[in-house]
């Protein structure tokens, strides 16, 4: 549980999809002109990331990873299908997005009007595929993968909404002509990224197991030192 909270906070603030990895930058810049559309796309990203990353986790761990097919037969222990990960991941994402669009359109027209128009955009949003591609490098458990997905989605939402809020205000500023639009937006994003870099200095609320071990070793070393000191002291006292 503690580990999950750590991953959650880390993926929102420290490893923010936008400010640390620049994933989903194209749609981030394209839809952040108005606060409302930005919030809509942000919600859609949270939703799609939250579902597709766990799906891709399952695909990776039960289909693609070396030795992942052993649940079918022990003979497949040496089969490594990792070459196919791009095709499988993007197929899952695209299929899921298409499916959601159809289901939402059929059963909830109101939700479709607010969310549905963004769904096709999301199939080609780098943050969704990026979230899936981080899985092989990070070795998460299932629960950790879900937390990571939700945290990343919320981080993206936060980033896009705050940029949209700034850009709405920027409409009243007198920006040099060639810098208008994309140029000044990049400079704003850069400044926001500086702000988010300061989260890197935060201590996570719970220590990872490695840190705990390191600290235990330290404290036990201290205890030994102390006992040695007390021996020395007592010897000194005795000699006095």
């Amino acid at each position, binding site marked *: 549980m503690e580990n999950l909270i750590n991953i959650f906070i880390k993926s929102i603030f420290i490893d923010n999809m936008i400010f640390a*990895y620049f994933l989903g930058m194209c749609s981030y810049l394209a839809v952040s002109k108005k606060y409302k559309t930005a919030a809509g796309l942000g919600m859609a990203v949270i939703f799609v990331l939250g579902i597709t990353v766990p799906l891709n986790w399952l695909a990776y761990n039960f289909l693609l990873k070396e030795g992942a097919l052993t649940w079918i037969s022990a003979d497949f222990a040496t089969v490594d299908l990792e070459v196919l990960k791009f095709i499988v991941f993007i197929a899952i994402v695209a299929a899921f997005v298409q499916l959601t669009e159809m289901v939402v359109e059929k059963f909830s027209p109101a939700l479709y009007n607010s969310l549905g128009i963004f769904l096709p955009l999301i*199939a*080609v*949003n780098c943050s969704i*595929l990026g979230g899936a591609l981080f899985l092989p490098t990070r070795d998460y458990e299932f629960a950790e993968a879900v937390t990571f997905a939700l945290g990343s989605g919320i981080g993206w939402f936060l980033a896009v909404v705050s940029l949209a809020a700034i850009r709405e205000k920027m409409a009243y500023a007198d920006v040099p002509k060639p810098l208008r639009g994309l140029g000044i937006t990049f400079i704003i*994003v*850069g400044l926001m990224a500086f702000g988010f870099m300061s989260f890197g200095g935060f201590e996570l609320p719970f220590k990872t197991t490695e840190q705990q071990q390191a600290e235990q070793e330290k404290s036990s070393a201290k205890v030994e030192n102390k006992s040695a000191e007390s021996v020395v002291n007592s010897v000194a006292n005795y000699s006095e």
Partner: protein
Amino acid sequence: MSTETIEKTNDKVVEVKKPSEPLFSKKRRQLLSNPLDEDNPITIQVLGICSALAVTVALKPTFVMAVAVTAVLVLANVVISALRNTIPNRIRIIVQLVVVASLVAIVDQVLKAYSYDIWKELSVFIGLIITNCIVMGRLEAFALGNKPWDAFLDGLGNSFGYAWIILAIAFFRELFGSGKLFGFQVMPDGYIGNGVMMSPAGACLLLGVLIWIVRSRSGYVED
């Protein structure tokens, strides 16, 4: 977009490539040259920003990335353009994604085999060429409505437009960030690297300024 013109192709196959031949008519030369400046994928069309910022810490990985994107974009453009009359409109996005994903998988395996270090450094960003907006954007806007040879030129032009921007950013980031170019020390000894240039935020600022320069030269103004 200015490049979306459909033109009649001359079926005559010309072996020797000369600018005067119809194979390189004026319009086609523009397909190659426009994306370099006036219709640049990064600074004007706002496509493919993710990788432009993420991989440009040093010149070497950036160069490899540019080559990888060129290979994928050109081949995908040609394949989709050749298939353009057989792809049903409703499922075209999925077809495009599958074609691009297969090409990226090939590029990924080649890189893994021949330059493992850089493959490791680029990590997820090779895979993210799939969702690189340049590839999808050019497929949607150009390859679906034009013949393969035009699509080939368009792909080449756009990937060169992309390449020179990311190489320019990487040049400044590596030079000021670590005092090196392509890994060789350029700055005098004792130069202390500028941490801002190495950080993602610095890349954003640099790209913002670069866009300012390119746009004030071409006179392009947004709204």
